[in-house]
């Protein structure tokens, strides 16, 4: 792994839903302008870990984090941290495309407006830039006023990426962003991710090991809440250190 200053530092991190512990002493450093993939069988905690990075788990009653997650050296679970500010810095794209039932334009503008931007010229500029950034501009520029739900699934997902980009985050979290898409739309999203990592720190949860191998620089393998192995993607997929990792990536289980 190249020796950059890590963007995100996770240190001895535990996470509980009520009494059950779903993440066990996770420690890993996530590099900036890098794609980091988290893989593992269903229920291993990979989505939970991702959602800890922008504190989406706050919504779940009786859930509890323990240990440290630092972004740029700042503990994101510290009481002084405003979760709204955190989420502006750490954007998220969900598993199922979830555009609001509003126009394409209003979807992208939403994050700007709730963050108090009123200047319409600035909003228009950012909407255009974000849609270009998510490679949707050419398809959408003539139908910005149309309801976003009229877009195809793949287009909807790229709209959700644009929506996340509009507020200019530093980190982009993606929770199986292509799992509800067909192969062509998936290929487009993957291209997009590779393009986006030039500017953003990307953490992606995926079920699809080929996908992780294709697009990520580092891969973390999680199993039952344990971080089994974490390293360069090329190493994990060609010469895994752990037997369990090897069995998983060769399809012995999972």
């Amino acid at each position, binding site marked *: 792994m190249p020796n950059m200053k890590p963007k995100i530092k996770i240190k001895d991190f535990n996470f509980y839903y009520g009494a059950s512990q779903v993440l066990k002493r996770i420690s890993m450093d996530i590099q900036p302008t890098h794609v980091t993939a988290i893989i593992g069988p269903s229920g291993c905690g990979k989505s939970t870990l991702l959602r800890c990075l*922008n504190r*989406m788990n706050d*919504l779940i*009653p009786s859930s509890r984090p323990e240990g440290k997650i630092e972004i740029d050296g700042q503990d994101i679970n510290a009481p002084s941290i405003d979760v*709204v*500010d955190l*989420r*502006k810095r750490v*954007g*998220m794209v*969900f598993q*199922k495309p*979830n*555009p*609001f*039932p*509003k126009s394409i334009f209003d979807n992208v503008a*939403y*994050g700007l*407006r*709730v*963050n108090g931007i009123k200047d319409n010229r600035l909003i228009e500029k950012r909407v255009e830039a974000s849609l270009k950034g998510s490679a949707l501009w050419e398809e959408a520029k003539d139908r910005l006023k149309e309801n976003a739900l009229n877009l195809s699934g793949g287009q909807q997902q790229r709209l*959700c990426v644009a*929506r*996340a980009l509009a*507020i200019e985050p530093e980190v982009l979290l993606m929770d199986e962003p292509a799992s509800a898409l067909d192969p062509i739309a998936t290929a487009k999203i993957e291209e997009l991710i590779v393009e986006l990592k030039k500017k953003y720190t990307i953490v992606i949860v995926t079920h699809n090991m080929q996908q992780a191998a294709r697009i990520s620089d580092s891969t973390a393998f999680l199993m039952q809440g344990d971080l089994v192995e974490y390293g360069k993607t090329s190493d994990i997929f060609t010469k895994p250190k752990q037997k369990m990792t090897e069995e998983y990536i060769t399809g012995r289980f999972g």
Partner: protein
Amino acid sequence: MNKRRLKEKLIEWLFFVNGMIAVLVLVGIFILLVRNAFPGFKEVSFWEFLTTSRWNPDAYDKETYGFLAMLASTGMTTIGSLLIAVPLGVGTAAYLSDVASHRVREIAKPLIEILAGIPSVVIGFLGIVLVGPVLAKLTGTYNGLNAINGSILLAVMALPTIVSLSEDALNSVPRSYEEASLALGANKWQTVIKVKIPAAASGIIAACMLGMGRAIGETMTVLMATGNAPDFPQNLLSSVKTMTATIAIELGETAYFSTHFYMLFTVGLVLFIITFFINLISDIIFHKHMKMLK
């Protein structure tokens, strides 16, 4: 085997009859209203009924049956009640569904639903002894029995319907919308107002229309609290006599099969048609809402 089949058939048939009874009763009411409404127009012109406002069935020389004053009275109390109940009800629903803690919700929601069970005569009583005197003092009127008093009480009565159904509508909004909004750095209130209420709009409109149906059809409360002056209302402080109150007060004291009797049925028929369409429209909107969310 055969016996079981027979039993199945019997049960099926029983439910069919049950279902049909409800439909038959509805049709029966409609026919009864229509049959008793039309003979009145032998003596009274339909035009007079629709376009004049003087309702004076006890006049010494010529009885008049103008319908506009009571239509305006019903309209005024109903719209007044909605102006109070809709913002309050939707706000309460938003609070309960998105802001209140689990405990608060578990206590508050049943309490609000109990409000629906208070007999209308009790609410009317409160109108006379509580709301009336307060209004009289605030506005300098004689007794505070007027349109605004009725509106306040009807708002209280429509509130449980509006809160309960609006909260259901807000809860049926997919969680993914809420997550998307929060992940973009919106706070709870922004999420409710800008994403959830628009997404639940049709359900909330249906809830408000059902509340409106309740307010239009309510009788005892308005009868007790609005003063029942038969004149065309001038403003919200006028004493008014609604369609429902007119029927309730007058039908018991009128001769069967007189013109007055028939004209009261006409008022009832109009009321039936109004509430029927309000319920129908709110039902259609609600089903559209449910379909959209799938």
